[in-house]
């Protein structure tokens, strides 16, 4: 079923896009990540212009995170104070991201920088997850219970001023810490079209030392608002949000996310993490190869 995308200016097979959204949604439901890191590259591979892909993928992540936030909210798993700090930083970060996006676009280095950031981020986080999940699986095999890691925040975080209490997160830290963390992910959201969950969650656990019960809900809360802000920023600056493309992706991904969440309940979490790590590393490798192999197109054309 062919459908013309009014902003991307090309005709796509609607079913392929819905299935793509569904596949990403399935994974995001299973692993609790937004899946933007898969959507954007896959859309580019399909032939969607990179700017339109990044701009439209952000709104897909918004949709995918809504039901997650609601579910965690009902359980009391969202630290609104912490979330507000993250969102504040995230909105600032998305403005910074939009500025960098523009700068790189003018210099003609946007695609390369995006690819390099993807490789570095996905490679390091995928590697960390792989190691951690393999250790957990090894421990489970030997019948040992995993030692609960001591919850503590990074000494650098403790040195920041204006400390305040975050009750749900069980923390007494400076609000600057989540603000800066939100800022960093906000930059990435606009540039890469990702929610940033796979950066936020480890950072909240290992840097801030948040109570685990509030981590996923609060990170989804931040992702919801920051991807919405990123969509607005793209709509007003690059004007590259394709509402038809986003709608198709959403229809697939919200359904996929629900199915994924059900599957996730039946699989051991360390195996889920191993699978996610493998997938993240696979995407990183694919993008890396794209950088080092001689590209099929040496020349690129843009309107000027």
């Amino acid at each position, binding site marked *: 079923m062919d459908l013309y995308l009014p902003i991307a200016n090309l005709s796509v097979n609607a079913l392929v896009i819905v299935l793509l959204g569904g596949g990403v949604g399935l994974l995001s439901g299973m692993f609790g990540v937004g899946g933007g890191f898969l959507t954007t590259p896959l859309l580019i591979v399909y032939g969607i212009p990179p700017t339109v892909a990044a701009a439209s993928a952000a709104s897909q992540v918004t949709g995918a995170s809504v039901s997650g936030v609601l579910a965690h909210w009902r359980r009391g798993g969202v630290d609104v104070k912490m979330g507000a700090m993250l969102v504040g930083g995230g909105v600032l970060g998305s403005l910074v991201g939009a500025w960098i996006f523009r700068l790189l676009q003018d210099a003609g280095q946007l695609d390369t920088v995006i690819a390099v950031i993807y490789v570095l981020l996905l490679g390091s986080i995928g590697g960390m997850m792989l190691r951690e999940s393999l250790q957990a699986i090894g421990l489970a095999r030997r019948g040992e219970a995993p030692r609960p890691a001591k919850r503590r925040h990074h000494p650098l975080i403790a040195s920041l001023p204006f400390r305040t209490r975050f009750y749900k997160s069980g923390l007494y830290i400076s609000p600057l810490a989540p603000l800066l963390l939100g800022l960093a992910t906000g930059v990435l959201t606009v540039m890469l079209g990702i929610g940033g969950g796979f950066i936020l969650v480890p950072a909240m656990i290992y840097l801030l030392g948040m109570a685990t019960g509030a981590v996923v809900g609060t990170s989804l809360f931040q992702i919801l608002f920051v991807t919405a802000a990123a969509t607005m920023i793209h709509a007003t600056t690059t004007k590259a949000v394709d509402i038809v493309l986003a709608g198709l992706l959403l229809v697939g991904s919200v359904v996929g*996310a629900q199915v994924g969440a059900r599957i996730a309940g039946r699989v051991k979490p360390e195996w889920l993490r191993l699978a996610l790590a493998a997938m993240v590393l696979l995407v990183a490798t694919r993008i890396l190869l794209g950088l080092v192999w001689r590209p099929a197109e040496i020349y690129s054309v843009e309107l000027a």
Partner: protein
Amino acid sequence: MRRLAALVPLALLTAQGQPGPKPVLVPDVSQRSIRIVYSFTGADLLLFGAILYPGGRLPRGERPVDIVVVVKGPTESVLVREKERLAGIWVNADQLRYRSAPSFYAIASSRPIEEIVDDKTRAIYELGLDSLQLSPASNAPSEQQDRFQQGLVELKRRVGLYYAAPRAVEITGGVLYRARVAIPARVPVGKFTAETFLIQKGRVLAAATTTVDIQKAGFERFVARAAERNSVVYGLTAVAISVALGWAAGLAARRL
């Protein structure tokens, strides 16, 4: 046929000023406008017409004529970038700006264009993918300009926006011609021109131009306009749709 009749004076005009009785082209096109709607996957333009000889038919002993049809999209200013290997990875290095590159270019001819006219004529009338005049906005060495131009044309050719179809023009009985030009789905919007050339012995005897208007229509036009003119409302709508769909799916899943 009224359209066709209306074009006769235009065609006559283009052939004026040449000595002796010359044949005249009466061109027409199957669609004056193409509307891009949700189901648009490209379109087929049929370019057809008649060659009017002074005596009603090709004079005896004369060499047969050739017809060349060129369909061009609105020109655009483009920036062409060239990738180079730097520290192991491929990055954009040199760039060159062209002030007027056609956004779409298709050339159909009754015989391969190299057999019909010489290089000079091809350069004058921009006949053929290697004869486009793109007016580079730089004083880079001509070797570099040629390289970039080849890169640009090759890229556009691969996405189907530039192409040559030798032998795609059929001439019937020496007086009627027709050519089918495929317009791909990736086509830009705007005023397209279809130029028809009548060529004999390497000389252009007559030329005529018709226009085709390609525009988005209906919902596609509404969305493209909203994104451009009411970007804040457009963005809010996109966010609202995302939230609503996500919420609905969450509710539906709880009921199941």
